[in-house]
C-alpha cells in the first residue's frame, strides 16, 4: 500500500502514557518494535519490491513525520523475524475528521511477500491497535482500493467491516 493523508498542523498530543512501548516477542517468533532510522534501507527495499517504485525521499519524509520522534498520536512499527525486518505498519489517531470522533487510521501496512501468511501482518496490526487504544480511542479505520483484494481480505480476516462512510472522488481535468 502505503497510503498517506496530508499532515495537519496544531495537533494536540496525547499524554505520555499513550506512547507505545516496544512490544514483547510474539509467540510465533515475530517481534514488533518502533522504527529506527537504520531500518529505512530495508523498508525502502520491501516497498520497492512490493510496489515496483523506489521512493527513498518519500520514506525519509515518512520517517520524519511518523518515526521515533514524531508526535505521540503517530505510530510507525516494524516487524522482525529472525532479526530481519519483514514488514511495517504506519498510522495515527486523527480527531474529528470526516465528522468522526477521534479514531485510529492505518495508512500503510506491508509484509514482504515471501514472509506472508506467517502472522507478521497480524502482529503489526495488533501492535498498532494496542497503541491506538492507549490513546483512548476505540475504533480503527483504513481505506484502500476496492480491487486490492489481497489487503482487503487481510483486514477482513482481522475482523474489520465496512465503515459507515462512502469515499467519493471527482475528475478535475
Amino acid at each position: 500500500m502505503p497510503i498517506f493523508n496530508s499532515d495537519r498542523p496544531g495537533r494536540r498530543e496525547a499524554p505520555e502514557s499513550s506512547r507505545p512501548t516496544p512490544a514483547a516477542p510474539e509467540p510465533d517468533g515475530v517481534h514488533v518494535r518502533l522504527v529506527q532510522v537504520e531500518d529505512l534501507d530495508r523498508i525502502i527495499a520491501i516497498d520497492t519490491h512490493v510496489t515496483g517504485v523506489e521512493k527513498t525521499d518519500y520514506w525519509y519524509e515518512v520517517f520524519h513525520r511518523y518515526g521515533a520522534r514524531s508526535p505521540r498520536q503517530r505510530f510507525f512499527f516494524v516487524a522482525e523475524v529472525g532479526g530481519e525486518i519483514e514488514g511495517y505498519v504506519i498510522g495515527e489517531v486523527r480527531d474529528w475528521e470526516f465528522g468522526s470522533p477521534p479514531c485510529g487510521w492505518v495508512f500503510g501496512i506491508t509484509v514482504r511477500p515471501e514472509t506472508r501468511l506467517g502472522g507478521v501482518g497480524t502482529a503489526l496490526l495488533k501492535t498498532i491497535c494496542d497503541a491506538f487504544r492507549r490513546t483512548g480511542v476505540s475504533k480503527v479505520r483504513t481505506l484502500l482500493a476496492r480491487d486490492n483484494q489481497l489487503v482487503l481480505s487481510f483486514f477482513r480476516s482481522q475482523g474489520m467491516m465496512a465503515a459507515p462512510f462512502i469515499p467519493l472522488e471527482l475528475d478535475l481535468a
Partner: protein
Amino acid sequence: MKLQKSTCLALYSVLEAASNPDRQIAAAEIAEKYGVSPHHLAKVLRELGRAGIVESARGVGGGYRFSGNAKRLTLMDVIEIFEDISARSPEEEGEPATDVGSALGRVLSEIDEIARATFSSITIDTMLKLVDQARRPARPATSQPERAPA
C-alpha cells in the same frame, strides 16, 4: 443485493461443511436446518463437488466434506459458480438506451462493483469467524471517550 436461492444454498452448505472440515455432513441435515428442498440442495452440492469445494462420500455415514482452502476461498468464488453478479452495461441491466437509462446504469454498476469487492474480500475462514461472533451474546456498546475538537 439479493442472491439467487441456489447461491444462498451453496453458501450455507460451504459454511456448514467448512465449520467442521473433519466431519462428513449429510445433505438432509443441511436441508432440514435451513428448511430447503433436499432435491434442490443435492443439485447445488453436485455443483460444489464439481468445483472441488466439497467432496462426497457414498454409503452409510456418507455425506459431504469441505475440500477447499478456507483461507483462500472467498464468497465471490462460490457465488460465481451459480450466478453472474458482475457490473453490467445499462443495456444488459435492461435500462433503456437513453440519457436517463445510461445515468441510472452507472449508479447500478457502482453498486455492483462495491458488492463484488465485498464478496471478493471475505474468505470462508473470515465468514466462520463472523458466524462465531454471531453465536456469542452481544457485548454492551462502549461509548467514545470525551475529547475536545483539535
